[in-house]
């Protein structure tokens, strides 16, 4: 062809949509993304903090798996994160962007602490725990369904509404802390009542409870009529209307569930771990949970893996801060880079870049 020699300005790269990739290929791409991210981070560590890259990666793993104590902490943190991620999932499956898990969990924790403070020592521990559970779940559910009611009745934006409710929850906690700390220090010490019993290890009950919840939620979403309705409403409200699903009812019911699950997370944090509350008790996990749920494509079983992965990154980053005696900004950057690679690789699962062909032609000729 004559034209091959002519300089033409065909675009260098254009993007082509892929067919559905086989599972092993898409998994391979994700694994490669993590490996590439870690290599890139090692390179950065050499350049920026003059660390040995092998030591750097080793420290990453050390953070979660270095000792039995770290392993338990890793499992506990992953479990709490998983629990909150489970909570946001039914809403997300319905395309209801609940970013208020932080507040819903905090308010659930606050309710449990309130029960501990006002009823502790007045009722037996078993009864107290049940009352704490009921209080957390109920208040969490109410907190979650307020934005849902507004959305159903007046079409308010659920994202803004749930976000704002976080601040209200934080404010309420701050108020009650002032009320409960006689000195006005707002630091509530560990309460001696309402502890969940420890079986085997301190954290074991919590971890088992969350895993059971994961399986239950999976079954609910996948195999029940209500779970099916959630999927239909999420995919298309018009289809839901067409087959006579009461969309508003489903929205409110699902947010009740979402909020209630956040309440469970709050209860577990208070009853099994903190035995106290602060405005930072949830510590941003309500937002991290959004990412955990998205990365797992809203599948509770896969969320076990994604919550573990995020926790692994966090712990690894913390370990790097300690071992290399550097500012925490660098490890945060590492976490950011890994997530960028992992989320970015989804693009290559859906699409493939196609390079200018004339280059190849020219090269061969």
């Amino acid at each position, binding site marked *: 062809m004559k034209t091959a020699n002519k300089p033409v300005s065909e675009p260098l790269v254009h993007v*082509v949509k892929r067919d559905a990739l086989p599972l092993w290929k898409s998994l391979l791409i994700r694994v490669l993304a993590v490996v590439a991210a870690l290599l890139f981070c090692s390179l950065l560590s050499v350049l920026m903090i003059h660390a040995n890259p092998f030591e750097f990666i080793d420290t990453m793993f050390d953070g979660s798996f270095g000792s039995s104590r770290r392993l338990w902490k890793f499992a506990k943190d992953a479990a709490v994160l998983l629990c909150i991620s489970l909570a946001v999932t039914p809403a997300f499956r319905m395309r209801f962007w609940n970013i208020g898990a932080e507040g819903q969990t905090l308010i659930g924790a606050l309710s449990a602490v309130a029960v501990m403070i006002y009823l502790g020592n007045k009722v037996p521990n078993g009864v107290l725990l049940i009352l704490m559970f009921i209080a957390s779940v109920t208040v969490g559910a109410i907190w979650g369904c307020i934005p849902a009611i507004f959305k159903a009745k007046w079409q308010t934006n659920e994202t803004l509404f749930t976000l704002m409710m976080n601040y209200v929850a934080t404010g309420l906690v701050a108020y009650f802390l002032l009320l409960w700390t006689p000195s006005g220090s707002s630091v509530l010490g560990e309460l001696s009542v309402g502890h969940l019993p420890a079986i085997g290890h301190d954290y074991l009950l919590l971890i088992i409870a969350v895993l059971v919840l994961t399986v239950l939620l999976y079954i609910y979403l996948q195999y*029940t009529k209500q779970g099916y309705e959630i999927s239909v409403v999420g995919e298309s409200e018009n*289809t839901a209307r067409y087959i006579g699903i009461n969309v508003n009812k489903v929205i409110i019911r699902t947010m009740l569930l979402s909020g209630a699950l956040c309440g469970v997370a709050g209860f577990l944090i208070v009853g099994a771990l903190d035995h106290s509350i602060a405005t930072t008790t949830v510590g941003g996990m309500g937002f991290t949970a959004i990412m955990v749920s998205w990365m797992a494509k809203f599948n509770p079983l896969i969320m076990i893996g994604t919550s573990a992965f995020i926790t692994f990154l966090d712990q690894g980053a913390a370990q790097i801060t300690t071992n290399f005696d550097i500012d925490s900004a660098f490890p945060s950057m590492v976490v950011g880079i890994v997530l960028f690679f992992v989320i970015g690789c989804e693009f290559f699962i859906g699409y493939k870049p196609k390079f200018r062909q004339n280059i190849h032609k020219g090269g061969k000729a």
Partner: protein
Amino acid sequence: MNKQVALEMKQVSKYFGSLAANKNVDLTVYRGEILAILGENGCGKTTLMNMIAGIYYPDHGSIFVDGEEAIIRSPKDAFHHGIGMIHQHFKLVDIFTAAENIVLGVNDGKSYNIKEVNRRVGEIADKYGFHVDPKKKIYEMSVSEKQTVEILKVLYRGADILILDEPSAVLTPQETDRLFEILSRMREDGKSILIITHKLHEVMSISDRVAVLRKGEHIATVETASTSPAELTEMMVGKKVELNIDRPEPKNVTDRLEVKGLSLTNPEGIKVLDNISFVARSGEILGIAGIAGSGQKELLESIAGLSHPTTGEIIYNNPKTGTAENLRDKDPVAIRELGVRLSFVPEDRLGMGLVGNMDIVDNMMLRSYRKGHSMFVDRKKPRDLANRIVAELEVSTPNTHTPVRRLSGGNVQKVLVGREIAASPTVLMAAYPVRGLDINSSYTIYSLLTKQKENGVAVVFVGEDLDVLVEICDRILVLCAGRVTGILDGRTTTKEEIGLLMTKTEVKEESGNENG
């Protein structure tokens, strides 16, 4: 005749994933001709045109304009080469005037002068015989006026090669005739016109040559004068097709659904249905004709319980109990609970009738998942139904666990119609059931509807192809701007008669004058 080549495509291919939308297509377009691009839906007509217009970039092959290789990476590049495309879905700013829309995005180095633009638009319009007021706002325009603006937009930018994507899909027969006159005038002026269509009679009446595509490949380009509809169909489909539709005489006709004085005002306060009355009878196909957006959707949705009319009655005569029920203000679940077996194939298949991301089995469940008291869904019966429909209607799919959005348009529709018929309805409403379907699938759907009619179902069929409506319907109701402008006998009426009723607004104007 001295033919000058305007545009040439050589060995052009475009792939989406592993699917070849176009494969090694060669195409030549001359100056001063109308070339029809004919082919079934999904054969790659639009993809091919989009590559000329700069929407897609070809994976292989080259395009030549006036003998020079042209690299068309964007619609802007296309305009630079004098190529303009009029898309099926208009891309206009509603609150701007025609002239403002036309000049939008034109960068000719001159300062913006709307008076000058108005003058030039008027000039172009006069030259080709368009009727358009450059100062009219888009939201005040009818569909055909909007289309005119789209064409003017392209001409204003100086396009010599015009591509029209199914321009007649939204027009009445009369409007189509007028458009074709204009296109002929452009041809005389030396413009090249490519018109995408799957309507054979249009090809025969307007084009000079026809390029036939099948499954992404260019089959042949033939002179229109030396071919016939039968030959073209054979090229399109790849085998001989019987284009006859059976219309058996209705049997055991009884009034099944009576709509009386139905009116509906939408949330914007516009009256979309105005005093509609008709009867749908068992054993009959009642066709509904009208320009898109004349109230067809609202009418069917009101009957199905999805919209709530402001006045009127929808009476269903239950053949089992003999009782008459008013369905108005009842939701779909309440209607079902009354024992009314009403099936509805909505216009928006993947957005309303089905859930695109769910597999065939889960889509089968949409209608039936509530059955039983268990809190768990039963997927066994839907699975059986899915298998049965896939087998009986020859749905081509890897298996019943494929998300329906991955199926082709025809297969999606077979799944939807199959599910609705499986509910053994007494009333079956279908809105544009063959839109976007290939010829074979279309005829499958027509015969399914006819079979339902023979089984004593009252079939309501909203269609856009008048040729088909007059062939399969027993009676045809014509809607215009939310009013019934006529109910005709399908066996004696003509396309032209329906076309006139579709635009019959005099009734409205008269009553308006009386008030005024």
